[in-house]
Structure formats: structure tokens, C-alpha cells
């Protein structure tokens, strides 16, 4: 509860901070404080100390899984703001920075709803609270046609998926024996499903799949990520996606786990398609930004493996994955924003002029590719392990690793450009603080890559008690 309320309140605060002063640094600091507060509040929640005694009538359920997810998400948001916060001003002149931050906080509010919802209503509200600000942020570069286009596309398709989702919810409601939206009541004793229930389930799968950009519902992703201001692309691709994924897992874990065998096949299909399309299409991209958009699809495919096999490993894994993926992607985008030219050629010879940027970027890419010694490896490891644990779908696992091998192709294209190709990569000014932070993030990734248990031991203890 702390997180939801603080984020909402701080969102409003941010709105007014714009009135107090429109100096970028000031606003940023307010935001940073807010995020720090969020982290603290969420942590207090985690250790069972709640600021507000509000009876949510079982519409929200604050379990460790959700709260840990929050921690990961807020943490990466904090890093995100520190790394790329000041680039928000640069999107356009007279950019309403304060409002943007406000929207970011509202999104966080939505995310923390999605991670702890207990009825479909809350899920719905959460998703909407996430989506609506995102439509805006995508279009925040008003004079830029690409930005507009992205925003409108995102909006139209988002609404459509909302419609699909609602239909699903409605059907589930109809199927629910007690006439309630609460996921614990929906779940009970669903070994064999009524047609209504199954239909609702599938529609929900589709709608959520759309939000996490799972193929074939991913088509908005490349365009939107490409069109949106890079700062917000980074935000969407990492924090939001991770948050919604947590919700996705939570939904299927809580509601449909009894009938897992019935829907596993569908998830498997979607996963396979997602992995395939995401990885293959990324290969041919010429712009790193767009490549990252596709890679985010590919990564989503990997996360879907956790959905396929909902078990202890999957729960741990998805959190680790969220953390690893968010950190790495935020880092890369932070560097990408600094680049003058977003194409692969734009990275040529970066290592010569900015060795540090190149080195950190390499580590992020390696992590995304899932090379050992980086967090990305264990993230992928958990996904694979969780599926193998189920004992079925070995073909999917092998397919997944082959796709991972393909992914190496396009990630390493960047590395090649930076190290082995000659050229003068143009970079706009970078402060030492920025670089320092990059190094910290990289170190964090390596650390998680060698000792993932720093994050996971907690989960082991907590999740299995949950």
C-alpha cells in the first residue's frame, strides 16, 4: 500500500514542483527523493511495517513476491532517472519536465497496482494507469511526427487490446461461480474448464501478451519504441514491461495455476513465435534503437518461459530477469541517448574515443546476450531451468537457446562496431557522474552475474514460505 500511495501522492507533488521552479535539477532532485522514499516505503512494507492502515477489501494483496518486484522496479527507476533524467529536458524546448515526472510516478503507481492486484478490476485499473500516461509520454515530443505517430498507434492499439482484455474479464466473470472478480475465487477448483472460462483465459492471455509485446500481438512495439523519445523508450522497455510481466505471472499463477496443463500449450506457441520473430527480425535492423526494440520482444519471449512453467524457479527467475534485463537495457539506452547517430555505423570506433562507454556498453550487451559472468546469464538460466523442471517442452528450450545464439549476432554487431571497426562515433557531452554511474551499473550486473544469490537467497526464503 505504501508504494501505491506514495507514488500517487508524489506524482501530484511533482506536478506542483513545476510551479515552484522550472529548473531541471530541482525537479530531478524532487523526483529522486520521491523514488528514494518509494524504495524505503516499499521496503518497510516488505518487513511488515505499513504507514497506512487501509482496508482494501481483498482487492490488493501485498505478498513478498509483489513487493520484491516493486523493489526491483523502483530501484531500476531510480537508476533510470539518475542516468537519463536530465535528457528529458532535451526532448524539446520548453519541455514540461515536471509533468513528465508526474506521469512517471503515476505509471509507477500503476505498476505497483499491477504487482499486487488481487482482483481483475485492480489489474484493469493498474494497466490503464500505466497505459494512459505512456500514450502521453510517447507523444511528448509534440513537434516530432514520428513521436506523434508512435503515440497515436500506441493509443489506438492499446485501446483495442483493452477491449479484448475487458471481454476476457467479462467472460471470466460470467464463468466465475461466485460472481466475483477476485482472483482467488476465480481460481478455485478449475481442473476442467467451462468454455466460457477458457475463452476468457485466452482473451486475457492475448491482452496481457499485447502489453508485454508477445508475438503476434507485438506489432506496436517496434514502431512505438522507435518513435517515442529515447528516454521514454528506455522507461517503457524496461520498467513498465517488467512490471506488467510481474502482473502477468501473478495473474496466471494465482488464477489459472490449477488448469496449467490446459493453457501451457498456448503459452508455448506464443513464446516460440515471440522468440522467433523477435530474434530473427532484429538481425536485419540498421538502427540500434530499433534493434533494441526487437531485442526487447526477444527478451519478452524468454520471460514468457517463466509463464509457461509457473514454479519456484520461474518466480525467482522472473524477478532476476526483470532486474538484469532492466539494468542492462537502461544502461544501453542511457548510452544510446548520448549518441549522435543511432545506426550501427554511429557506434563505429566508440572504443577508441570513449573506452569507458564502450566497455560498459559491452558488459550490458553481454548481459543481454546471456553470457556467463553477467546477470543476464543467470536470468536466462532460470528461465530454461524452470521449463526443464516441468519435464515437458524440451523442444521449446532448445529452440530458445538457438534463438539466444541468434541474439548474439545482433548484440555483437554493436560490440564489433565499437571495437573492431574504425570510425569516429559522435557523442554529446557526458558528465563524469554519468560515467561513474554507468560503471556502478555494470559492476552491479557483473556482481549479480557471479553471485545472483545476493538477490535470490531472499527470494528462496521468502517465496517458498509464500
Amino acid at each position, binding site marked *: 500500500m505504501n508504494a501505491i500511495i506514495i507514488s500517487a501522492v508524489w506524482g501530484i507533488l511533482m506536478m506542483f514542483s513545476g510551479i515552484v521552479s522550472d529548473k531541471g535539477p530541482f525537479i530531478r532532485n524532487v523526483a529522486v527523493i520521491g523514488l528514494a522514499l518509494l524504495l524505503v516505503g516499499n521496503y518497510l512494507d516488505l518487513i511488515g511495517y505499513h504507514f497506512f492502515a487501509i482496508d482494501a477489501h481483498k482487492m490488493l494483496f501485498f505478498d513478498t513476491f509483489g513487493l520484491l518486484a516493486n523493489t526491483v522496479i523502483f530501484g531500476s527507476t531510480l537508476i533510470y532517472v539518475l542516468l537519463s533524467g536530465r535528457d528529458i529536458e532535451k526532448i524539446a524546448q520548453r519541455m514540461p519536465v515536471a509533468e513528465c515526472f508526474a506521469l512517471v510516478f503515476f505509471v509507477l503507481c500503476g505498476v505497483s497496482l499491477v504487482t499486487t492486484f488481487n482482483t481483475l478490476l485492480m489489474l484493469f485499473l493498474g494497466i490503464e494507469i500505466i497505459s494512459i500516461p505512456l500514450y502521453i509520454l510517447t507523444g511528448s515530443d509534440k513537434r516530432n511526427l514520428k513521436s506523434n505517430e508512435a503515440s497515436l498507434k500506441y493509443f489506438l*492499439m492499446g485501446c483495442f*487490446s483493452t477491449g479484448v482484455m475487458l471481454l476476457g474479464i467479462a467472460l471470466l466473470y460470467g464463468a466465475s461461480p461466485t460472481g466475483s472478480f477476485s482472483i482467488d475465487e476465480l481460481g478455485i477448483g478449475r481442473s476442467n474448464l467451462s468454455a466460457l472460462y477458457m475463452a476468457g483465459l485466452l482473451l486475457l492471455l*492475448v491482452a496481457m501478451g499485447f502489453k508485454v509485446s508477445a508475438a503476434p500481438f507485438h*506489432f506496436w512495439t517496434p514502431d512505438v519504441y522507435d518513435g517515442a523519445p529515447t528516454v521514454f523508450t528506455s522507461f517503457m522497455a524496461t520498467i513498465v514491461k517488467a512490471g506488467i510481466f510481474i502482473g502477468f505471472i501473478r495473474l496466471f499463477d494465482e488464477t489459472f495455476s490449477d488448469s496449467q496443463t490446459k493453457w501451457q500449450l*498456448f503459452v508455448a506457441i506464443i513464446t516460440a513465435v515471440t522468440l522467433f520473430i523477435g530474434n*530473427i*527480425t532484429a538481425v536485419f*535492423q540498421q538502427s540500434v534503437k530499433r534493434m533494441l526494440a526487437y531485442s526487447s520482444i526477444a527478451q519478452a519471449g524468454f520471460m514468457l518461459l517463466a509463464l509457461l512453467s509457473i514454479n519456484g524457479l520461474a518466480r525467482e527467475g522472473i524477478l532476476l530477469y526483470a532486474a538484469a534485463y532492466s539494468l542492462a537495457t537502461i544502461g544501453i539506452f542511457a548510452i544510446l541517448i548520448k549518441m549522435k547517430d543511432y545506426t550501427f555505423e554511429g557506434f563505429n570506433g566508440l572504443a577508441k574515443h570513449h573506452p569507458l562507454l564502450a566497455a560498459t556498453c559491452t558488459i550490458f550487451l553481454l548481459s543481454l546476450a546471456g553470457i556467463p559472468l553477467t546477470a543476464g546469464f543467470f536470468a536466462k538460466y532460470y528461465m530454461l531451468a524452470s521449463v526443464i523442471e516441468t519435464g515437458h517442452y524440451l523442444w521449446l528450450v532448445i529452440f530458445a537457446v538457438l534463438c539466444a545464439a541468434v541474439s548474439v549476432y545482433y548484440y555483437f554487431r554493436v560490440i564489433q562496431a565499437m571495437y573492431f571497426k574504425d570510425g569516429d562515433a559522435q557523442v554529446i557531452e557526458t558528465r563524469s557522474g554519468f560515467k561513474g554511474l554507468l560503471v556502478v551499473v555494470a559492476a552491479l550486473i557483473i556482481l549479480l552475474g557471479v553471485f545472483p544469490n545476493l538477490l535470490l537467497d531472499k527470494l528462496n526464503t521468502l517465496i517458498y514460505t509464500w
Partner: protein
Amino acid sequence: MIQLVWLVPVLPLAGFLINGLFRNSLSKGMTSIVGCGVLLASFILSLLIFGEVRQENFQAVTVTLFDFISVDKLHIPFAFQVDQLSILFLLIITGVGFLIHLYSTAYMHEEEAPHFARYFAYLNLFVFSMLLLVLGANFVILFIGWEGVGLCSYLLIGYWFKNIDYGNAAKKAFIMNRIGDLGFLIAIFWMINQFGSVNFSEVFTAAPGTSTAVLTGITLLLFVGATGKSAQIPLYTWLPDAMAGPTPVSALIHAATMVTAGIYMIARSNILYSLAPLTQNVVAIIGLATALLAATIALKQNDIKKVLAYSTVSQLGYMFLGLGVGAYTGAVFHVMTHAFFKALLFLGAGSVIHAMGGEQDIRKMGGLKKYIRTTHWTFLIGCIAIAGIPPFSGFFSKDEILAGAFAKSPVYYVVGVFTALLTAFYMFRLYATTFLGNFRGTHDQEHHLHESPSAMTIPLIVLALLAAVAGFLGVPEAFAKNSHWLGHFLEPIFARGAVEHAAEGGVSQEWMLMGISVVVALIGVIAAWTRFSKKPDLAEPSGFGKVLANKWYVDELYNAIIVRPLYAISKFLNNVIEKWVIDWLVNGVGRLVQYGSRQLRLLQSGQVGGYVLLMVIGILALFLVELFVKK
């Protein structure tokens, strides 16, 4: 004393190391002293050991140095075996070896010091390996020496490495030997699999208990090895080319010692062979065929060394015939005598070439006997010996083999005798064309003609003596009881294996055989003498002669059916399979991904309508799966 036998090979090794490592600092004098000294030392050592071995009821001694390979059940000690057979070869190798080293000091004198040293280093290394070969107490050590000598012959044939042809000859020698060695190796593996050991003692004791089929297989494979090393059909073609090396090398390696390794190996494992009659026949036939083939070729060769080379092949054929018919003593006897007279002949040839300033074509010689007397006389003795005219050594040994052959089957005998005829003929053709008649060389060659220095002539003389008298070591029983000293000496080796046919047919028959062979030899000699002493055939050979001159076109045949196809295949694999099949497939996967990427991204049409449509289709698909597939 016998325990010191390891010194015999180690000394030449030391010589090799000294000459090899300090080749740049040593003077020629020093080099020759080291080179010859070690040989002399080990020769003396061998003599001392021989003194112990020749005592009555001497039992074979095995000297184990260390454990070479020992893996679970398989134990291969690095051990030497001293017995009558090995000591005999020891003497031949070190003795003849020493003489040839001595000879070389003069013959190679034009070389600059480093190369001179390199030469002697190789030579010493060769002797080392050869000694290893004959001393080894098991097949693996034997094999080590076996390949060692192969290497040395490779190095020495290619000694003048600037000349590509010599290099090719060396390569040919090595590779053909390799082919044989493969057979040898497989035989060894088979033995390991069969007897669990490669030690002579254990293998031979276990042999009688094993099935003939297995033994036949093993012995045949061993024989494949022998054909490679001892230049028998089909692997003989390398030996004539090997004449590219310096003449003393030809004398030592390609006449006296190395090429007899095959005979040694088979004689050594005579027990196995006696148990595999099929193999014996194969050996005999191959040997006979080789003897005949080589002899015919030798008829039409004009390169003095080539003639000797083919005669060597032919003589080796004789030895295999002997082995095949079970006349092991005869074979070994012939090895010894052959070592003497063939070394003699080669060195003589060397001396001739030396005198002629490098000229090797006998058509450009003639009438040399008045210029180089010593060489001439010694060479003549050699010819007589090889022609098999009593009482020179060749007669006794060859006769013993022929006797054995006759006992086995008259056919063998007839062919053998015919070959003897040819041998006598071409040897004296050579002699006559070279030494008789009048000089056909250029003018300055005639001026240049001179007798070789004593360092060369002394070995000639010594060898000539040996070639003349060595035969008396094995006087047939027909003359006097127990006159066959060698036979008695080698009895412990061959007692169980060999069957001495000589005595069987009765004395009279043996006299007759001898008579025949002598007559035949004389016919050949006289025919050649009369024909070539006055007017040697300088005409280009024609008709059948051409075929012989071109060695039955065997080399061309091999080229056509083995070498060229091999290169063709390798070219095909390299240019086609590798590039256009395997690698193409590998890269094809990459290209496929690229292509797929290019096509898939067209889905991303940029049209919202299209996207929604695809989404709807996706939903439809899921429901259809739900409706139909899952049922």
C-alpha cells in the same frame, strides 16, 4: 660384458649428438674422427660380445634398460636382446659401417665443414637406429629402429637438399616405407590384442598355441612392412631413386644394412612364419618375382648406381625367397655376403664416379681398368662374388637359397637359376662397359681420371677380401661334415623354425644343383664379357628393351593409379566439398537467418490496420487451436 651392450648403439648416438650440435664449430678432421671413432668403438665392443656369444650352449640374454610403455596389462620394456642373430647383424652393421664411414671421410671431402658434420651426424644416427632395430628385444623397439632408419635414409637421400629431385626421391622413400610401416604397426596391435605382449620371447612361446589364421594375418602384415623396408614388390620403386644420396650412403643403407632389415625381421620371427605356410609361399613368390623383375630391369640400366640398385633389389628378392622356403640360415648368410660384395660394389662405383668427376653414365666410361687399378680389381671381385662363381662368397649363400628353393619346389629353383643367369649377365655387362674397351668420356674427364685416396681404397680392399672369403663360413655339408659354421652358429635361432632342406635330397643331388648354378653363372659371365667388352651397346634401347629401360613403366603406373588420384581427390575435397558443401551449409544457416529477417520485417508494414488484423488473426488462431487441435 653383454650387460654393456647398450653402449653399442649409444656410442653412435653420442657421435650423432656431438656432430649434430657442434657442427658449426667442429673441423672436418674432428668430425671424421668422432664419426668413425664411435663406430670403431662399437665394432670392437661387438667383437667382444661376439666372443661371449659364440661359446657353446649360449643362451639369449635380454638387457632391460627401462620401462618404455606400461599401460594396464601391456608392458613394453626398452630392452635389448643379445643372441646369435643380433650379434651377427651387429658385426655386419658396425663393421661394414665403420669401413663406409672411413670411406666417406675421403669421399665427402669437398663438402664444407657444417654439412660434412651434418653428413656424419646422419650417418651415426642411422647406425644408432639400425642397431636399435637389430638389438630390440620386442617388436616395438624393433619398430622404433625400423622407422628410425627410414628417417635417416630420408635425411641422407635428401642430403643435397638444394636439389628438388633428390628431395622428391627422399620423400618417396619415406612415404613408401610409411605404407609398409602401417602394416607392421597393425601387426603389432594385433599381437598385443592376441598375445598381450610384444616381447619376442613371450610372443614366440605363445605362438604355437594360436590359430593359423591369426598367425597368417600377423605374418602377412609384418611382411607388408618388410616389402616396404626391403624394397620388394609392390613397394620397391623407392630404392632405385634412393641412389640420389651420396654413394657411401647407398652402399651402407641401400645395400648393406637397412634394406636387409626386412629379412632380419622375418628371420627374427621365423617361428611365426614357420607356423604360417601360406605366408611363407607368399614371401617366396614375392621374393622370386622381385628378384626376376629387378634383374630384368637391371639389364638395360646405364646409370652405374641404378644397375647396382636393381641388383640389390634382386638380391633382396633372393633373400626373401630363402626365407619363404625356410632356408633362414641361407637368407641370413646371403645378407652377410651381400653386405660385403654389394658394399664393395657400391664403394667401387663411388670410386669410379669420384674418378670420373661425378659422371655416372657407364656409356661415357670404358677402359677404366688401366687408370684405376685397385678399384678395378676390387670391383671385379665384387662382380664375381655376386655372379655366384665359386669359391667367392656369393656362390655359397646363393646356392644355399637355391637348394632350399629346389627342395620346396623345382619351379622356384628354375626361376631362381634363371635370375642368377641374368644377374651374372648384367653385372658383367656393367663391368665390361665400365672397365673394358676404351675410354668414351670427354677429354678433360680423361685427364681428371685418377685413383682414389687410400681412405677410399683401403675399405675397398678389406671388403674385397671379405667378399672373397666370407663364403667359407657356410660351406655346404656336402663338402665336409659340420663345415657349415654359420648354420651351427644360428641353430638356436632357427632350430625350431627352419627346416634345412639342403641335406635331404642326398649329396649327389646337391652336387648337381651346385654344378647347374655354376654353369649358368659362367654362361652369363661369358655371354656378357664377349658381348660388351669390345663394343658396348650405346644405342637407345628399343622394343622390349625400351620397356626394361623404363623399368616396366611401374613408376608411371603408380603415378597414374595412386599419386594423381590422391591429389585429385584432395583438390576436390578442398575446393568443392569444403568450400561449397560443408562451409556453404554452415554459412547458409547464417544467410537463411538474414533472409528470414529481411522477409519477416515486412510484416511490420507500419499500418495500424494491418497490425490489428494480424492481432485478430492471432486470436483466431489461438481459438482454432483450442477448438480443434486440443481436442
